[in-house]
């Protein structure tokens, strides 16, 4: 009986255990067999962390590798206002380190926001100082945190800002080359996924995936920082002195099309672009067009010489007034009837003389030359906001168009196009499209930009004749003795153009310019100076000439270009 009892109890216990165990087994099957993946995923997700690995933005350097734009490590100082125990004391501690007012800081730190920015983009050194700060009674500043970030800096402090451009708050390009080359400069950010333990440390050997970021490519420009600086300073001084609207200086190597300097004023501070008006954030040398005026006579001269219509010594009788198509044309100054050579009409910049000479060729024949010199055509730089200017096509010519084009009015160009016209003559008649990017590099391998396209516009003989004629512009009877560079033969042309003002739809004010090349017998450099709407200005030679001389002189020295040691032929200006 006792034995039977025990056996029953045993059997009961076994049964109970079996039931329990099968319940467990069932649950086990449910967890491990049926819902396993869902639970495993959930568990892993609670440990997994995914972070974006930002790509380093490429540098922008000048032609010698000097950084014009670079990226540095920085820290954003943030605060959790609910954790800041004593805003006033924290503000007092932070104030001298972050160079901010105590009251401003205190108001930033007071409140219930869990995340506010206290200071953006401070240097790591400053952040270390912040870390070392203590409140009385506590170590460190409660509620103050650091966020690792990077910052775009422009070491040249505004040198070539118009070319380099600027970036927005998120670090992507918003202007200039920073915008145009953004995909290349930015690279591709990577990401890492790994498992974190409860303590927050990375679990080695667990799920670990990393896609390394692809750093942005470095971009080397054709700009020479020092020449750019001198050009920028010179044009800024002149624009301020003459209260001009704006000014540009372009320095170009005519043989390669390399733009060594593209300076404009007013410009902007790339470290703080928001403080400048929108109009100053672009590149005036490419975005603004104007009527070139007398500097355009170089195209007329090239056409006339190329087509053998005139020679430098061809006499031209220039009256004080000339009536064509119902309009009376005149020169800048009143003068008695003059007996000039064709060279003389250039040296003294006679509009009437130029019209009379162009008439010998047929006015319509000028049009294809303007086009071949690149007027009204894209420069090929493809910079943001570029304006190509325009020449009225033959079909749309009015009765006077043919008479104004020879002296550079009635069509529009940007400063780089005009520099390129002079560079064509400097390069023996072959036009090399301008270039701003010398090449890009990544991981030490440099990829040069393919050489610019070359087109012959006029013969080398024509170009050399035109250059000799243009030397007379800087001669004793020319319009631009102020543009001389002592010791060098310089060929150039002044421009004092009537300026078309879009606001009134009329001609108001002037565009003063001087474009030239040196050494005149074997040009290595072209410098183009343009001043828009200077007040109280006298003429291209007087206002732009000295800027030309200063920039050209510096560029020649800087690039170690010696004088050729030859003498100017001194072509006759007055006909016998």
């Amino acid at each position, binding site marked *: 009986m006792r034995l039977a009892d025990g056996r029953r109890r045993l059997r009961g216990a076994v049964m109970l255990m079996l039931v329990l165990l099968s319940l467990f087994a069932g649950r086990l099957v449910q967890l491990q067999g049926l819902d396993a993946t869902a639970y495993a995923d959930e568990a892993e997700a609670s440990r997994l962390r995914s972070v974006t690995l930002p790509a380093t933005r490429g540098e922008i350097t000048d032609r010698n590798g000097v950084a014009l734009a670079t990226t*540095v*490590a920085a820290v954003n100082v943030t605060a959790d206002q609910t954790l800041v125990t004593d805003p006033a004391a924290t503000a007092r501690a932070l104030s001298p380190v972050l160079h901010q007012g105590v009251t401003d800081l205190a108001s930033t730190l007071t409140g219930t926001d869990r995340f506010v920015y206290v200071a953006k983009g401070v*240097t*790591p*050194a400053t952040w*270390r100082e912040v870390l070392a700060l203590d409140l009385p009674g506590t170590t460190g500043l409660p509620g103050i945190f650091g966020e690792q970030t990077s910052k775009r800096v422009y*070491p*040249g*402090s505004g*040198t070539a800002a118009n070319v380099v451009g600027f970036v927005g708050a998120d670090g992507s390009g918003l202007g200039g080359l920073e915008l145009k080359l953004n995909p290349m400069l930015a690279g591709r950010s990577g990401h890492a996924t790994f498992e974190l333990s409860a303590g927050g440390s990375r679990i080695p050997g667990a799920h670990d995936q990393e896609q390394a970021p692809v750093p942005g490519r470095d971009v080397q420009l054709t700009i020479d*920082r*020092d020449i750019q*600086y*001198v050009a920028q*300073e010179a044009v800024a001084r002149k624009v301020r002195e003459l209260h001009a609207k704006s000014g540009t200086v372009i320095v170009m190597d005519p043989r390669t099309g390399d733009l060594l300097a593209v300076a404009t004023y007013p410009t902007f501070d790339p470290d703080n672009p928001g403080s400048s008006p929108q109009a100053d954030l672009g590149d005036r040398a490419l975005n603004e067009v104007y009527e070139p*005026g007398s500097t355009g006579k170089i195209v007329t001269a090239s056409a006339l010489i190329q087509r053998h219509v005139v020679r430098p010594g061809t006499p031209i009788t220039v009256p004080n007034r000339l009536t064509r198509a119902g*309009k*009376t*044309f*005149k*020169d*800048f*100054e009143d003068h008695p009837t003059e007996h000039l050579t064709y060279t003389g009409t250039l040296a003294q910049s006679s*509009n*009437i003389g130029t019209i009379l000479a162009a008439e010998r060729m047929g006015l319509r024949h000028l049009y294809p030359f303007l086009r071949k010199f690149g007027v009204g055509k894209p420069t090929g730089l493809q910079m943001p906001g570029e304006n190509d200017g325009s020449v009225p096509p033959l079909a749309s010519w009015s009765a*006077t168009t043919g008479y*104004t084009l020879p*002296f550079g*009015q009635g069509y529009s160009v940007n400063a780089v196009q005009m520099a390129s016209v002079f560079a064509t003559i400097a390069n023996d008649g072959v036009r090399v499209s301008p270039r701003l990017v010398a090449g890009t590099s990544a991981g030490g391998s440099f990829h040069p930009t393919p050489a610019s396209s070359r087109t012959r516009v006029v013969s080398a003989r024509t170009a050399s004749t035109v250059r000799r004629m243009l030397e007379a512009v800087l001669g*004793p009877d020319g319009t631009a*003795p*102020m*543009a*001389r560079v*002592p*010791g*060098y033969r310089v060929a150039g042309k*002044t421009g*004092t*153009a*009537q300026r078309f003002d879009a606001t009134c739809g*009329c*001609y*108001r004010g*002037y565009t003063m310019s001087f474009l030239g090349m040196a050494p005149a017998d074997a040009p290595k450099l072209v410098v183009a100076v343009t001043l828009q709407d200077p007040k*109280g200005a*006298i*003429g*291209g030679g*007087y206002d732009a*000439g000295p800027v030309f*001389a*200063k920039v050209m*002189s510096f560029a020649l*020295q800087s690039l*170690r270009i*010696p*004088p*050729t*040691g030859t003498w100017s032929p001194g072509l006759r200006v007055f006909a016998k």
Partner: protein
Amino acid sequence: MTARTQGTAAVARHAGTAPRRSSRPGPLRPRLALVPPMHATAPRAPFVLLIGALLSSGLGLLLFLHTALAEDSFRLERLQASSALLADQEQALEQSLARQAAPGRLAGRASALGMVPSENPAFIRLSDGRVLGKPKAGVAPPPPPPPAPSPSASASPTASAKAAGHSGGKPGPRAQGQGNRNRAGQKPTPHVEATPTGAAR
């Protein structure tokens, strides 16, 4: 051990049966007894010591390894921190160098020292010793430069005086003289018209 004990027992049994064959009963019947195991009390101490030594040395080694690893990781942390600090310093110094080397700053400091940009570049051609260009002493700006930082203030006046002395007797640059002549003879009043009729020059 067991085999040996059995073997001993077998020998004993054999020894015991021998007198029985002589069929001599009596009190002389030998007593059966187990032969005591020969080495039952082999010294245990060395073995225990060996094991103990092995265990403790293993433990010690493990401890040492852990300590070394921990120490290395501390060192790594220290070095990483100092590497980060040095990288930050390098970056700060590079930026400061870039600021100092910026052309604007250099130009400012040079002019504070009384230097002027050369406007008369000249070259000596080594092949024939000919001087290309027109070398000329620089002309100091007339007033002392407005930004005169204290360290270079003493050098500045002497330098400008010297430069001025060099060019004191000479007239201004030729281009400038002629420019002024021409400028004087020109009418500075431009004409404005609704269409470009040739006021351009």
